[in-house]
């Protein structure tokens, strides 16, 4: 028991922080209420340190270091997101309280709860990274998603936030049902929910002629259900509406936390079934010495998903007139990019970063998280005063037009963020995007890499449109009402600025590390390190003696025969 608990220290720390924050948020004393954000930040930092220090190497998994880096990533980006989220909850109510127009009423405040939901979600993300078990993974995914539903509804008083919440929640429940059904079939095909045991069984089945169709169905449904979390086709449709409706800081969170959870889960599940499952199973025999590929139907379906996701995301982003919708569609497209690396898989044993798709995904998640915070922080800081005097978020292109002239610093952050999303060379986005191409190429998926390239070109079009609106155009009449956020009594929005600056630092400093000794690629490589499960080492003779005498696998004959036999 204690062994199981010992892998959970970061989550335990976060949960304790959550409880503290919930209580702090109810205090009648404003200064104590203000402590919510710093305490949450401290909790995240402690959790990050604990994740780094206490997470043991998981020897029973094909990905021994994945948990540690996954948790660390969650803590780091979580910290940035926390800064963004500061001041979202209860803004108007707190303003009223501060001006003395209302008494503080613990029943009406949601401040502590809001932070608590965020921390719950991050806890879920960490649990996802450390999952060794399907039940665990299912619960962790739910813990990631359920708080976000509430956060959207709480994020803003506008009707759009409600609409976002209802769309996200109900479609999310549908997605959850689908991946649950998938998990059920994975269990059904292997008799176990332990990922290591699932790997073993799939390897055994693969050696025996092929993974059982029920297992494939399970993996397939799990992928499709998780497509909701990562906003991939065909489960992507909610994305623009939900992102547009939620308050910008919450949108930034939606664009990262569930996506990261989805990719963690996809990596964990696909590592069980594909690339030899770490155990010399080559479902579709590929080049000698390599991991092999994903089993045939899964690989093909994922390829279709990746292509459609990239293309649809980018193509629809071109058409948009709302900045947040553009970013939502681009978020879809980014998932597609990452799927390319995921399909490529971990590459041959012992390879370093360039061809390890898992490492590429982890690195891209880091880059995407940071860049995302940068871009959304600008949207979070700006607000628009409407004709009738009410205040709204900026949304349309017109409102960011001429941003450079009105808010130079914000425009600089915005443009750097956009360039980062675009993958512009000196920025981190570029160094993170390169491995996607490299791993796809190394995995032999030339067509996918080509489509990835074409899509990057399409993406450049709308990113440059955003850039030119912010930098080159002159302010429109509608932009005249756009002001940076009023200094609310709780000064929350300052944090968005700090966050933006932090994200900028990450965006610019990390590439410096990249060209120097402390390469982010190095930790990404560690994170994506893919090993055989003890006892299931790859059968080397399979690889070496393949050329002279192919192993007598019964499957080819069967495959060749079955159509005629059936006829």
């Amino acid at each position, binding site marked *: 028991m204690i062994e199981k608990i010992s892998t959970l220290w970061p989550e335990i720390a976060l949960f304790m922080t959550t409880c503290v924050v919930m209580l702090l948020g109810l205090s009648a004393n404003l200064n104590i209420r203000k402590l919510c954000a710093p305490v949450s930040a401290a909790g995240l930092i402690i959790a990050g340190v604990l994740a780094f220090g206490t997470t043991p190497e998981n020897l029973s998994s094909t990905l021994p270091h994945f948990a540690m880096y996954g948790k660390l990533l969650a803590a780091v980006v979580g910290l940035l997101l926390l800064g963004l989220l500061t001041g979202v909850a209860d803004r108007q109510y707190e303003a009223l309280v501060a001006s003395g127009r209302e008494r503080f009423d613990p029943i009406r405040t949601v401040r502590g709860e809001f932070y608590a939901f965020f921390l719950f979600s991050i806890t879920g993300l960490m649990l996802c990274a450390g999952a060794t078990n399907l039940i665990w993974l299912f619960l962790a995914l739910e813990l990631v998603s359920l708080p976000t539903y509430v956060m959207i509804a709480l994020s803003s008083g506008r009707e759009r936030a409600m609409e976002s919440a209802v*769309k996200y929640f109900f479609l999310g429940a549908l997605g959850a049902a689908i991946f649950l059904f998938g998990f059920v079939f994975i269990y059904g095909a292997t008799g176990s929910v332990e990922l290591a045991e699932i790997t073993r069984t799939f390897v055994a089945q693969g050696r025996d002629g092929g993974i059982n169709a029920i297992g494939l169905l399970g993996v397939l449904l799990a992928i*499709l259900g998780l497509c909701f979390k990562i906003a991939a086709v*065909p489960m992507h*449709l909610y994305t623009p509406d939900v992102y547009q409706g939620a308050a910008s800081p919450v949108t930034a969170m939606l664009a990262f936390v569930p996506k990261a959870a989805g990719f963690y889960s996809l990596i964990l599940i696909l590592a069980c079934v594909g690339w030899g499952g770490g155990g010399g199973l080559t479902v579709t025999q590929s080049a000698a010495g390599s991991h092999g590929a994903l089993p045939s*139907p899964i690989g093909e379906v994922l390829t279709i998903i990746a292509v459609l996701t990239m*293309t*649809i995301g980018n193509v629809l982003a071109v058409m948009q007139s709302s900045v947040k919708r553009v970013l939502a569609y681009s978020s879809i497209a980014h998932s597609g990019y990452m799927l390319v690396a995921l399909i490529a898989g971990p590459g041959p044993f012992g390879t370093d970063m*360039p061809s390890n798709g898992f490492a590429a995904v982890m690195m891209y998640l880091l880059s995407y998280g940071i860049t995302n915070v940068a871009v959304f922080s600008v949207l979070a800081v700006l607000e628009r005063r409407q004709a009738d005097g009410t205040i709204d978020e900026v949304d349309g292109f017109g409102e960011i037009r001429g941003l450079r002239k009105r808010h130079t610093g914000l425009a600089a952050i915005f443009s750097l963020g956009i360039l980062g999303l675009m993958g512009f060379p000196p920025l981190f986005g570029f160094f993170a995007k390169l491995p996607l191409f490299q791993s796809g190429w190394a995995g032999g998926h030339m067509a996918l890499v080509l489509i990835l390239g074409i899509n990057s070109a399409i993406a450049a*079009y709308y990113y440059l449109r955003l850039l030119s609106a912010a930098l080159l155009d002159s302010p429109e009449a509608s932009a005249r009402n756009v002001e940076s956020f009023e200094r609310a009594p709780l000064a929350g929005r300052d944090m968005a600025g700090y966050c933006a600056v932090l994200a900028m630092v990450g965006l610019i400093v990390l590439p410096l590390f990249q060209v120097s000794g402390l390469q982010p690629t190095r930790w990404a490589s560690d994170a994506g390190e893919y090993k055989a499960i003890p006892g299931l080492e790859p059968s080397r003779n399979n690889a070496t003696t393949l050329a002279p005498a192919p192993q007598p696998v019964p499957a080819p004959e069967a495959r060749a025969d079955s159509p005629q036999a059936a006829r």
Partner: protein
Amino acid sequence: MMMDQMMSSLSPSFAPVWSLALSGGGGGGGEGGSALGVLASLKEVPLSAMVWLIPGLPLLGALLAGLCAVLKVRSKLPAWLMVLCLAGSFAVTFWMYQQVAATGGSTFAVVHLFDWINFNWAPGKAFVANFSLYVDPLTCLWMLFVTGLAACIALYASEYMSHDVGPGYCRFFFAFGLFVFSMACLVMGDNLLLLYLGWEGVGLCSYLLIGYFYQKPSAVAAAKKAFILNRIGDLGLALAIMLIFVKFGTIEYAKLWPMLTQYLQMAAAGQFDQIPTSVQLIAVLLTLAAFGKSAQLPLYVWLPDAMEGPTPVSALIHAATMVTAGVYLIARTLPLFQISVAPLAGLEGTWFGFVSQISALEIVAYGGGLTALLAATIGMAQFDIKRIMAYSTVSQLGFMFAGLGVLASYGAAFHVFTHAFFKATLFLACGAVMHGFAGQLDLRKLSGVMWMKGWLIVGLAMLVGCLNLAGVPFTAGYFSKDVILAEAFSVGHFRPLAWILLFTALLTAYYTFRVFFRVFVGPKHYEPGDELHAHDDHGHDHGHGDKHDHGHDAKGHDAKAHFHPHPPGWAINTVLALLAIASIAAAFAYPTYFVKGLVDTSTAQVAAGAAGHTHVGGATIFGYDPHKAMYYISGIVGAVGIITAFFLHYLGRRTAATSAADNLNLGALQRAAQNKWYVDEFYNFTIRLPLKVLSHIFHMLDKLVVDGLVNLAGLLPRAGGAGLRPSQSGVLHGYAVAMAAGIGVLGLVALLALR
């Protein structure tokens, strides 16, 4: 002042050290075992991390100038900051030189600043190019005159550019500092990539400074021309670096040289067929690079046009430092040339077949020699004094390459060193004239300048420079040119080249003194040029209001009527005096073996027994040893040139515009030389015209086909987006249905794929 320091440091105690090192290296080189004696015995010396200040201070200066631009400083502050920074940089260089000298040469040190590019993809396979400085005698030599001259010229420019105080001033000094930084990277980098960075950096700064007067179309055109022609050379350098990496797996000097030892042994033994052709090809590519940067045939045409830039820039970049980068490159990579001296056999029948009969060193030598001759002939017939100096620079660079080609690397480096000083002096003197006479540079419109009030120092400096350039005995230029000439005569198969060089020396002496006699002495006369900014600057603008009609002033510029030349101020005079003294003092570097010691303990050392350096049958000139006879011969040649100029351009001259030379009618030859042998026109016709036609064709193709495709490609996403947009109906149920249908379809795909 600074030169004095430097010269005084050449205390006799060092000289024996250098010569000892030299003799030791020579003795060791006799055996095949250590063909490149010094290179094989290289060991690292500890060198304090102060060295980073050498590139660091100019960069700081550039940043400060940039800061001044941001702060809208309207004073000479950036100039003073820059002078301070460069002087500091020079001081550190000098200190570095002393450190190196104290070890007695034969050493190098790699000062690691920070990791720059460090790709490790497999054990033993890495692409490493760190930001490290390589300190060896050759580096010291180059950096000494680069930083020293830069400091002087910055001081000069503080006055020269004073009409432009303000944003332009900051811009100038920003580019100036950046240039010195880039040059330091180029010279001091410990790997070829850093060299390449500096190479491109100086090219960029050169571009920026040539185009400094960006409102002048000719300046912009010249900047573009320089930039584009340099690209051709840069291509060669890039290819060479790639080839070196492919062949040797490293681009760091410290790792590269030991790898060459084996090839050098083969070369010494004459077994050139064992050296891979591709390794020999590297030298050819490097030659292309060096010829581009150093304005040699056929890529020299950009340098005369580059005189559109401000004169300090011409002096520093286009005479003294940047254009010698090509010489530096070859000197630095001389081992690669020494293994490439055999005809590149094995290339026949390939695309590189045309170089199969000629070795890299021959290309360098003959390229240099022909350039020297051609530029000298053009220089003889020009009237723009700055342009004459430009052609003279091209010509002298040709000398340096010829020296390298005949493996007189010491002579080449020495000539670089002396040339840097006297050519800077010449340019700055011309610049002072230009500054004082409102941009007038036509030697037919100026005369007797030296005798005007306040112009004596300029005239004397000019005289010193001219004497050096003409190779009058016991001047620095005389010594350095002699080394090259003597070596060319002593290597048997370069005999034709040697005669070409000697003839060029004659021409050089003639055209140099043609300028001096016409402009600085003779009857006093001047016509102002059309740049009156300097005039305005000094408040002599009373002429602006009058409307006098002057017949000779076709353009009707009123200001010209009351033009007064203004003699140079203290900064220009100080710098000129300093440089003139330095030009004279540089001669003392010859007997002390200052330069020779530095060169022969660096990579530019010529391996004894290197093929191509055989003194065939003890070649002689008129029966004497060329090394001795050349003192007399070149002295005589120089004197003949000067006397010819004296008769043609001084004796009996009445007006500024005429001279005895006008009576000479050389017909077409003269016209052709005046028109620079129609090289630009030739290039226009053979290269630019076909390119233009081609570009028009491509433009049409681009417009019709590519644009069409691009438009189509641009249309596709939009059309796709318009088609897909209805799927985003905004209705919860619509989304759910689409999701379910998607799952069904993808499931069906999976089912079909499962076979």
